[in-house]
């Protein structure tokens, strides 16, 4: 009996760690890219910072009202964006470090586009029933690399609602319906 209680306790104790195992970690190698970049953006907003930020969003601006509603449920927003003056400043390994984390069954790639110009985009979502629990966007260009990770429940409708100044298109809504239909479309 004691063994059962002990194992249950251990299981419950390790539950948060198991949940965290699904978290996406932006590799430290990305930070080094900033040294070679002409422009770089590093946004790291955890839940507490998001809550703080949402308090400062305007109640008069409709876009900010929507943003406030959106970020209220989120656990974090992480953005790394780099612009370089010449090509080949980042390696495939930098991107692969993210991509490999998205191979778990919870994550599915809903859009993957490759162009001849080298402008490639991938959109991954973490799904649970009808709800998205996370979103990752990997956009690569010869002289540009952008990685966006939105951690937390977010519905396609909420994303499309931010279509004003934020300009988030309805892509997520459309693509979610035809999940995986576009997957590997251009590969």
């Amino acid at each position: 009996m004691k063994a059962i209680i002990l194992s249950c306790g251990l299981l419950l104790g390790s539950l948060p760690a198991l949940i965290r195992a699904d978290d996406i970690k932006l590799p430290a190698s990305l930070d080094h890219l900033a040294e070679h970049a002409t422009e770089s953006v590093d946004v790291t907003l955890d839940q507490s910072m998001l809550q703080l930020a949402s308090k400062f969003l305007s109640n008069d601006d409709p876009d900010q009202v929507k943003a406030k509603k959106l970020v209220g449920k989120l656990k974090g927003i992480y953005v790394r964006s780099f612009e370089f003056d010449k090509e080949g400043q980042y390696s495939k390994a930098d991107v692969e470090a993210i991509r490999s984390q998205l191979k778990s069954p919870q994550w599915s790639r809903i859009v993957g586009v490759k162009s001849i110009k080298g402008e490639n985009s991938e959109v991954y979502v973490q799904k649970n029933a009808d709800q998205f629990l996370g979103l990752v966007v990997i956009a690569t260009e010869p002289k540009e690399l952008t990685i966006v990770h939105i951690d937390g429940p977010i519905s396609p409708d909420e994303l499309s609602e931010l279509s004003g100044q934020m300009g988030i298109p309805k892509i997520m809504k459309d693509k979610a319906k035809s999940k995986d239909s576009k997957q590997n479309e251009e590969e």
Partner: protein
Amino acid sequence: MTPFEQELKRALARQQPSADFTERLFARIEEEQAAAPVRWWQRIAQWPAQTIWALAPVCVLILLTSGTMLYTQHRRAVQGEHAKQQLLLALRITSNKLQATQRQVNEVESERQPNQKDNIRRLL
């Protein structure tokens, strides 16, 4: 001199104050001063020096606490404004990248449609 001028002259003629005027004036001033409310700082000024020195640390503590609170509030406001700007920037970048992705998908679809039409024509 008209009767009006005479009346005016009489009215404006110099008169000596009564003998007890000065006494009555000072008495009135003292009365008013006694009746005036004592201000809070006047009361504090009347406190004994020991009480004032005993309260000095309390006043300093209150000032320090309120100063710290104001500074913390200001710092939090700065942090909040910075976080807001970061959030808006993050959402804008996300938006731009999703829009670019959508544009690319649309381009692929528009390129594919004529090809599909050609295939159908060939089949027919």
